[in-house]
């Protein structure tokens, strides 16, 4: 297992390097001088030249690239052009809202998707099954920002049960009641995401329910709930874990929209503000951090497989 992990970590290196290269060249795709674009049309040639010197943009491309990679390796993602704070510090200060939002959305997606998928598979071709499949298609088509606005209209404006916007840190206050700021955005993102989980759970359970060992368990007199959950679901869980992992990463990326609707101080809002300000070091940093999270999470998912299915050995 440790040899496998070491091998996977080594294999991740080319992917991470390519992502870093792409993030580096992103800034250089800007037509003209990136410094001129960042400072806007009012900037003087002296301002542009000074920014280019500060950012090292006056050096040859290969020197810029080497410096960029060396700095990255030591955790230096550069400074924000707008706020002059280190990019990594800025991202970490806003990561809590994004991470909690993605986690809560995922929990909602799983709480809706997995039981619905199991029940649909167990009651195949029934009214519930047809309802579950049709609802999954319908729900997957709902734009999360539109759902968020409608939820805000109903629960915040009409019923006044939940706040329309804002966020208070859970880490600093330790107050779980602060999760109320995340409930509506999490539901807005989690519901559409539950569709894929529902469909995949149903599909893999249908495959597993027809296996001989499930019929054997029934023949031995095992309770139906134990047959479904302990025997069938456990064996169907590997693909479900894959889609759950993919859903989490998708939620981290799509959190941009929910954070905008509900004014959450997360990295999604950070990247939108940075795009408006042409703050390219922050844009590069956010892309890199989220991509790194994707790569690490994929590795963790592979490790989880081993615990779910003892037949999987690396």
């Amino acid at each position, binding site marked *: 297992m440790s040899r496998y992990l070491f091998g996977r970590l080594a294999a991740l290196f080319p992917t991470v390097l390519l992502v870093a290269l792409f993030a580096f060249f*992103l800034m250089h795709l800007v037509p003209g001088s990136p410094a001129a674009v960042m400072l806007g049309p009012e900037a003087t040639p002296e301002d542009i030249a000074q920014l280019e010197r500060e950012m090292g943009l006056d050096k040859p491309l290969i020197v810029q690239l080497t410096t960029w990679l060396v700095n990255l390796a030591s955790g230096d993602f550069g400074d924000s052009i707008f706020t002059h704070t280190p990019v990594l510090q800025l991202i970490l200060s806003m990561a809590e809202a994004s991470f909690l939002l993605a986690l809560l959305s995922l929990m909602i997606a799983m709480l809706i998707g997995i039981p619905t998928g199991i029940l649909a598979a167990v009651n195949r071709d029934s009214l519930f099954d047809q309802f579950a499949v049709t609802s999954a298609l319908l729900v997957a088509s709902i734009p999360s920002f539109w759902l968020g606005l409608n939820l805000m209209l109903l629960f915040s404006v009409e019923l006044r049960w939940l706040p329309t916007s804002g966020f208070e840190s859970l880490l600093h206050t330790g107050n779980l009641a602060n999760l109320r700021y995340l409930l509506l955005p999490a539901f807005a993102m989690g519901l559409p995401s539950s569709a894929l989980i529902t469909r995949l759970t149903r599909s893999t359970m249908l495959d597993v329910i027809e296996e001989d060992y499930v019929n054997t368990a029934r023949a031995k007199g095992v309770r139906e709930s134990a047959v479904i959950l302990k025997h069938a679901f456990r064996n169907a869980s590997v693909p479900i874990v894959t889609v759950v992992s993919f859903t989490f990463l998708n939620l981290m990326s799509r959190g941009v929209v929910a954070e905008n609707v509900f004014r959450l101080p997360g990295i999604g809002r950070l990247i939108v503000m940075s795009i408006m300000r042409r703050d390219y070091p922050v844009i590069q940093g956010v892309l890199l951090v989220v991509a790194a999270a994707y790569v690490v999470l994929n590795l963790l998912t592979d490790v989880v497989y081993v615990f779910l299915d003892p037949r999987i050995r690396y």
Partner: protein
Amino acid sequence: MWRKLKRRKILWFSAVTLVAILILATFAPWIAPFDPQDVDPMIRLQSPSFTHLFGTDRYGRDVLSRVIYGARLSMEIGLSVTIFTFVFGTLIGLVAGYFPSADRILMRIVDAAMALPSLMLALALVSIGGAGLQNVIIALGITFAPRLARVARATVLSLRERTYVEAARAIGVGNFRILTLYIFPNALSPILVQLTLTFASALLAEASLSFLGVGVPPYVPSWGSIIANGRAHMVRAPWLLVFPGVAIMLSVLSLNMMGDALRDVADPHTRKR
């Protein structure tokens, strides 16, 4: 048999809905009752009425006309992104699937591209290129092409070992002809399924980009920007959210249903479900 018929019904329903949306989009100048840019402060934020079926927005513009023109933009972007994705994704997938040496390099690049968060990447690319139809299409195409490349590659990997391909190689058919005449036509089914899902995802992504104000210029009517502009008045004028939102949902739903039905027909493994 009942399931087959049901699936066909779904296919018909989704096809009819899509065709209706395409007709609206194509003939928008003749179907829309008003110019979507016509401003009239005297009738701002009017609720749906006989004259303005979907009401008016904060500038007094007819929402129905803007939704119809929004369909035009969404279909244009959706189709263009799908074509872009088809061309580049299929090309990369075919080459990677058929040539092992190219596979190692191309799949590393595809893995790296898929590691980047898609919506954030599209935002960043549009910000670099500037707002505009072309840049939105390229940005979304770049984010969706890797996924199609993986699907195409997986299909080619299995087709490469088929007997008819071996036979073609044995009689001296060149690699280019094998790829274009033997492998590509047989790889089309899963690619087409993925493309309908790509179209649906492109519609959602474009709506999200327009909603965030990073996409086409704000004066161009798009479903996402209608919702974004209506947000400040959604309590007083909820129709500004309802109609464009339902339009997005219907379009995406019909594409997802079509992709589902196509997958059922194309993949015998799912047919039994």
